[in-house]
């Protein structure tokens, strides 16, 4: 007795094939399914549908009878899963999986994904999922997170310093936005938490661009100076093709130092808006640094020889920047004025000392992170000293 299904008045123009497919799923190729129903075009629809789906309609049967074909099963024969479970982050993701979600059953034959990084240990950090959750929970709206009405009155010659520093920050944030954006487009989406984190990082930088630009233009109609040396320094970050080296140079060394700078600016902010924007940006940057450090440490744990490549990357960048001026004079002086809060000689002296302390704090922070990654302390000190004078 063949299996029978009753579609009642349901036609194939109204989803009838779902019920038929469901009934056929339980049969083996060659087995028969009798289809009953009252839809006037059932016979015509069924014949056309069977033909298209690779089933056969038995022309000699009294009631419409499908002889099950095998095409639907053939399509999935040998199909691999992109990871055994959704939590299975495999050591090497197949480009043949294309854009399939982790743990999905992947029909063979799709286009291979053109991505560069398919090895877990080259992009991963175990903390990535938590950092991403933290990043999404801590997104803030520049329109409401900053009290833009609290502009206050900043002396004109201190405001000049704010504008110059904001000009510098915007330039740096533009590089910091472009780098994760470039990295994530070359990453296999199997490592989606890293991709999500990089996307959140790019979104963070987009907000930073907005708030620093807005603060810079609060009392002016244009920004300050852009030094060639600073831009050359940032450009070397953009040109680093390797995922880990780019992450190391940008986040561990660059954004790590930048974090100290943002804390410094927050401390010495001449108005509430400057204090707000640097505080909010610093919160995000801390997350970026955390991933960079965790990822680089992950790579070094898997391959201690990678320390050599990190060292070479720092030395190469130092050599590339040897003939540039580094931090432009105007930025450095602006930081002194901000720390001083006025142009009184005694205040300037105080500000000067504060900026020196800032540089020392940056240096010790870099050394700490380098040691965490696996460098011996003397080597960490030497590498930290080679870091760009441009902070980022």
């Amino acid at each position: 007795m063949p299996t029978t299904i009753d579609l009642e008045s349901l036609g194939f123009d109204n989803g009838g094939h779902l019920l038929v497919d469901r009934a056929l799923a339980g049969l083996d190729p060659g087995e028969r399914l009798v289809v009953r129903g009252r839809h006037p075009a059932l016979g015509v629809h069924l014949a056309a549908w069977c033909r298209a789906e690779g089933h056969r309609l038995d022309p000699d049967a009294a009631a419409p009878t499908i002889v099950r074909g095998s095409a639907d099963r053939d399509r999935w024969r040998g199909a691999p899963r992109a990871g055994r479970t959704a939590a299975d982050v495999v050591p090497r993701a197949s480009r043949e999986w294309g854009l399939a979600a982790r743990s999905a059953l992947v029909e063979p034959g799709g286009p291979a994904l053109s991505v560069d990084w398919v090895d877990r240990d080259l992009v991963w950090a175990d903390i990535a999922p938590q950092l991403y959750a933290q990043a999404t929970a801590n997104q803030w709206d520049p329109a409401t997170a900053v009290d833009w009405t609290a502009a206050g009155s900043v002396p004109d010659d201190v405001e000049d310093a704010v504008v110059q520093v904001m000009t510098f920050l915007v330039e740096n944030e533009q590089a910091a936005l472009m780098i994760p954006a470039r990295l994530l487009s070359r990453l296999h989406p199997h490592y989606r938490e890293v991709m999500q984190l990089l996307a959140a990082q790019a979104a963070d930088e987009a907000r930073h661009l907005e708030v620093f630009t807005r603060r810079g233009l609060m009392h002016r109609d244009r920004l300050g100076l852009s030094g060639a040396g600073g831009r050359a320094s940032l450009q070397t970050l953009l040109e680093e093709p390797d995922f880990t080296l780019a992450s190391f140079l940008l986040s561990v060394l660059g954004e790590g130092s930048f974090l100290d700078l943002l804390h410094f600016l927050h401390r010495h902010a001449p108005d509430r808006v400057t204090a707000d924007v640097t505080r909010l940006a610093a919160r995000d940057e801390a997350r970026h640094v955390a991933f960079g450090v965790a990822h680089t440490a992950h790579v070094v744990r898997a391959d201690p020889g990678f320390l050599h490549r990190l060292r070479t990357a720092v030395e190469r960048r130092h050599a590339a920047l040897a003939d540039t001026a580094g931090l432009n004079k105007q930025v450095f002086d602006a930081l002194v004025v901000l720390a001083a809060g006025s142009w009184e000689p005694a205040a300037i002296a105080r500000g000067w000392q504060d900026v020196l302390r800032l540089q020392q704090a940056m240096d010790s922070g870099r050394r700490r992170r380098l040691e965490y990654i696996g460098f011996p302390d003397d080597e960490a000190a030497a590498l930290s000293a080679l870091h760009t004078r441009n902070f980022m």
Partner: protein
Amino acid sequence: MSRTLLLGAVAYDPKVVTIWTGFRSWFAERGLDLDYVLYSHYERQVEDLLAGRIDLAWNSPLAWIRAERLARARGLELRTVAMRDTDRDLTSVIVVRAEADLHSPADLRGRTVATGAIDSPQATLLPLALLRGAGVAPTDVDLLRFDVGVGLHGDHIGGERDAAAALLAGRADAACLIDASLLLFGRDGTLPSASVRVLAQTEPYDHCNMSVGPAADRALVDHFGELLLSMSYADDSARPLLDLEGLKEWLPGRTDRYAALDGAVTDTGFYLPDGTLGADDYRP
């Protein structure tokens, strides 16, 4: 180097390039040198097949009828090496609006009947033959013909879609469609559910086939046919091509289900017995 087998196909859609380029590579990987030539319509393809300029023609059923007639007139022999599983046992239908007071083909006398293109076997020639068989001559009805893609022998679905739209809009009382189009239009909303009713249905007939020219190297064509029939839907290098070409499996060609179309061609004088073009208003 082995001899090249040259196949003709009609470019009814840009995807045809993808399809035959894919087949060409697939055959090359199996040591058979296949190349293809694209035609803008079936008539030149058939003429070139008979003239030996191509070895194989991926022919519409109407092109097969003409090729056979041309071959017979010249004392040549044609055969077919394969067809798709989806080329077997198709039917065409004449549909009317669900609420229309039309219950048999005879009721269409004096009514407007929408068809596909002049050269569409499925949406014009066969359904009109069905009407003729029921005693309704083309002169008994007002024909509203949608000549989309003339020369493509109905491969372009636009004419059928226009006919269905005309029926729904009340500009026609009946529309002629292939069964697969009735299903498609029902599912994509062109013909909303329960808006139309099947008034008549043809007997099953076959559609395209891979026709072999009289000058083709028999052994080479047989090898081609064996490889073609070995294509498996489970093979992910072949499946995208099969999906694009609309089949799950190649089957041996058969030529015994073209009689109804041959009769329709004769009755309308679409082609003359020697295969020359007979329909006055056919301009491929």
